[in-house]
């Protein structure tokens, strides 16, 4: 499994264009965070970081498709189960790094900018963690089913929809139609979201495993 993790890490950070896209993505987030100090932009940056954390599969899928590496990979002393498990372990590592990064943004907005309190900022971050798990679950399924080209199209559509949804939800929460302002029990909602996101992540793992074994049956 270590070999697969090394290869996927190399595909993400050893190929210049992929490394450049990570630097660009997190650079933009940092730049916007430095210049925009409102609660709206804080939430946006947290969710953008969640998107960045779900990207590991795209680069490795692209490289593997170009070279048809999977056929060779299965001849190595590694089982199909271990191949998929390694990819999801790497996904969790990416999610961990991304959510640590978003937590640093939380600290910046709470303690440096004083744009909102820790109690106000934490639900955003927790939703971001859930969103990153769910988005990773979906992106792994999408790329496994559709491959790199169509997978990227679907991923972009999902991101665009999420961006629109964020704007709409923000507006609705400001006018008291949703969220705490509307009397929702936010901790309960968060309490349900987390296990649901973990469950979706697990179901994604099971499905992708089944698909991989079927593809190479």
């Amino acid at each position, binding site marked *: 499994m270590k070999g697969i993790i*090394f290869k996927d890490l190399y595909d993400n950070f050893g190929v210049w264009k992929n490394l450049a896209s990570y630097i660009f993505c997190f650079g933009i987030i940092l730049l916007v965070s430095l210049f925009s100090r409102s609660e709206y932009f804080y939430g946006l940056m947290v969710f953008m970081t969640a998107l960045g954390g779900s990207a590991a599969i795209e680069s490795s899928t692209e*490289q593997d498709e170009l070279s048809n590496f999977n056929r060779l990979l299965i*001849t190595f002393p590694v089982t199909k189960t271990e191949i998929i498990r390694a990819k999801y372990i790497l996904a969790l590592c990416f999610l961990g790094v991304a959510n640590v990064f978003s937590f640093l943004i939380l600290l910046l907005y709470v303690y440096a900018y004083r744009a909102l309190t820790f109690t106000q900022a934490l639900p955003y971050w927790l939703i971001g963690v859930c969103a990153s798990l769910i988005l990773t679950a979906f992106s792994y399924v999408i790329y496994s089913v559709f491959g790199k080209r169509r997978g990227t199209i679907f991923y972009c559509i999902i991101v665009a929809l999420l961006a629109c949804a964020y704007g709409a939800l923000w507006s609705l929460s400001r006018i008291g139609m949703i969220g705490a302002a509307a009397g929702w029990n936010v901790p309960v909602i968060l309490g349900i979201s987390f296990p649901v996101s973990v469950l979706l992540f697990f179901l994604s793992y099971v499905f992708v495993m089944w698909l991989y074994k079927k593809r190479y049956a």
Partner: protein
Amino acid sequence: MENAIQVRNLTKKYKDFTLDNISFTLPSGTVMGLIGENGAGKSTLINAILGVSDAEYDQVALLGHDLRTQTKLAKEDVAAIFSDSHYDYGMTPLAVGEMLSRFFRNWDQQKYLGYLKRFHLPEKKRLKKFSTGMRVKLEFAAALSHNPKLLILDEATSGLDPVFRDEILDILREFTEEEDHAVLMSSHITSDLDKIADYIAYLHEGKLLFVKTYDDIRDNYGIITCGRQLFDALSRDDISAYRKEAYSYKILVNDRAKLRRIFPDIEMVPASVEDIMLFYVKGEKVK
């Protein structure tokens, strides 16, 4: 000495093709050429032996390890090289080595670097900038650097020039100098197999028609060009296949020595592996 490959009653079914009840053994210390026309099932068989695709079988063992119950152990000492599957093009040879060192217990980095030097491969150049020949050389370097005992090649030399193919054959000869090493190679380039194979296995439409030693083919198979009279005079058991041409018959016979004793003046030329393939595919069987 155990067999390098043991296959018993292997069947793989697709919608419109079936690899049907294949059984053969590859003794250690030998090279087996797997031949057959396009679509005969060579890659399907190799995929099934390597566990790339699932198949039904009574036994598949690689170097004495059962593929079903000892998958990782079976593959530890096996190296495969394909014509259509490579390392990621964004990687460099050094990165490939780093990756493979994490897969194989017996990975020898010094040996790998030695092969890179021997094959004149730049260590830090990305594979997308390699020529086809360079990629194949890298795959051989990688394959040989974890001290495998079994090499499986699926059309690994197709698309390469004769000079380079000759270099590859030298590498394979060097590999098989060890008594416990073996090679299974599928190839359309039967002239390469003429130079190196100890056994020839012929697949045709999903069926294994024969597995013969190369010496058997070289010493016994022959081609006779004759008229109807001689064709009728030959025993049906001696004719493997024939082709009726405009004014004569071309006959593939399987016992030259015997026919030479009966017909001392007959014109007979030795049959190559390619001749045998053509006769089996395009020729007719005696009824």
